[in-house]
């Protein structure tokens, strides 16, 4: 893999899209493109393979954050992955839909160490289980909590 640092070019988003399409055709759905931004939707079972490909082949070496969103009918997990060398400054956003009755997503913390605490946080606040995570324990809230405070079903007292 060539890791020389390059200056930004307008063609990068198309390049990334075609490389991902070549490898994961039919599994990845691109929802938008902007300067330095690529947005895509991926199914749960293909997530781990796509993330591994992003890091190993396209040198996306920094997982900035993992975001949980409660859409009421289903949940979503959003990953933001950045590049420091080959596509410098490029950020790819992966969105995964998770059905309410089966809240499981493969953990990417073995690929990016930076995803570790973000996944723990998403688990403790939304109850989305990250399969294969080394230590899925409560981080910000007390250990005695038995509910997931960031779900929409949990109302803020005094306001509603």
């Amino acid at each position, binding site marked *: 893999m060539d890791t020389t640092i390059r200056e930004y070019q307008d063609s990068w988003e198309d390049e990334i899209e075609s490389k991902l399409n070549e490898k994961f055709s039919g599994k990845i759905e691109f929802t938008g493109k902007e300067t330095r931004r690529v947005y895509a939707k991926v199914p749960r079972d293909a997530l781990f393979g796509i993330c591994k490909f992003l890091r190993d082949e396209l040198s996306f070496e920094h997982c900035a954050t993992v975001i949980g969103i409660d859409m009421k009918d289903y949940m979503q997990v959003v990953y933001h992955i950045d590049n420091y060398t080959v596509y410098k400054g490029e950020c790819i956003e992966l969105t995964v839909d998770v059905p309410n009755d089966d809240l499981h997503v493969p953990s990417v913390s073995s690929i990016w160490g*930076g995803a570790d605490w973000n996944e723990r946080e998403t688990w403790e606040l939304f109850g989305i289980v990250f399969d294969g995570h080394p230590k899925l324990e409560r981080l910000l809230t007390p250990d005695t909590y038995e509910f997931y405070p960031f779900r929409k079903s949990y109302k803020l007292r005094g306001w509603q």
Partner: protein
Amino acid sequence: MADDDKAAAIKTADSKVVDIAAETAKMDTDKMWIIMGPQHPFSHGLWTLKIQADGEIVTDAEPIVGYLHRGWEKEAENRPYPKIIPMADRLCYAASMTYTHLYCMTVENALGIEVPEKAQYIRVVADEINRLQSHLMWLAAVGTDLGNFTVFLWAMREREYWMDMNVRLCGARMTTNYPRIGGVRNDTPDIFDRDIIRCTERFEKALWDIIGMIDDSSIYVSRMKGTGILTREECANLGITGPALRGTGVDFDLRRDDPYSLYDTLDFDVPVLNAGDSYARYMVRIEEMLQSCKIIKQAMAKIKALGKNAPYRLKVPTNVPAGRHYAKLEDPRGESMMYLVSDGTDKPYRLKVRSPIFVNVSASKELVMGCRIADVPAIMAMIDMCLGETDR
């Protein structure tokens, strides 16, 4: 200092660690867990670092955070957009302006509005004032952590001048409540341009006094050199951002590589060092302060060229159209990000904050592994802890 000198210094420090480890291995000692925090001189806030020590060598570590978790993101879901601005200030008291700027930028992205040029440059100046005072507070903390109280006093004295600039600009020292969705609250006051240039020029000289005091002290330097070494790959993989990342040789700064707020029209350098130890992180921050002065001067010149009557704030609608938007910003501590899911009402559906320290501190195990207990404060000081944004 030449690169091979640096390598030699690291090598000596490394071989010392190995020697002590070998000696302790000969002795029959039990491993012991030591709890540092939440009330501990090194912690700079409420958090705990559990370290497992084999004699003097740290063999395992586990950071514990969450004492300040107040459900910031949940609270934001229940407030109208403008009322979140003062809350964003409270995410980090040392860099309040950057967080408010970030929040306003996120909502502006969602509204699809272009902020007036003058407001953009005023925000740049405000951000850099915050970067300077945040780095100076970090420098003061490093001074006490490493046992040099004069550094603390001098850095705090320099910080006061920047706090005065904050007061001139927006009337408050810390939680400034200054940027607004669509611009900034007020124009720069009458003699602000004169004052800030004086302040900048004074600081560029005064900083060298502090640098001299640290770099001439062999005790100080030997506690930073060769400790807490991370390689470039480890650092990027662990999600560490900001000065700690640039201290390992990753040439990445959002201000230059993913420009926002007209940073691309300003000329500045991004300091990068390859050593990857505490000293490199310290040097990167010092150099960043000098670069911030350079940015402030250029941005003030641009503001002056725009004239007194240029617009600095737009009227914006209260409801934000449905969609998903995010913004990233180079905080003094690293890459901060806000992700907004809006549903067309006047309140956000979900607002996620990416805090740089939340991720940086999760890597503290890798940072302190293999070092001596006495080095732990020196290494963790280079993270520049801020618990308000970590726990949210």
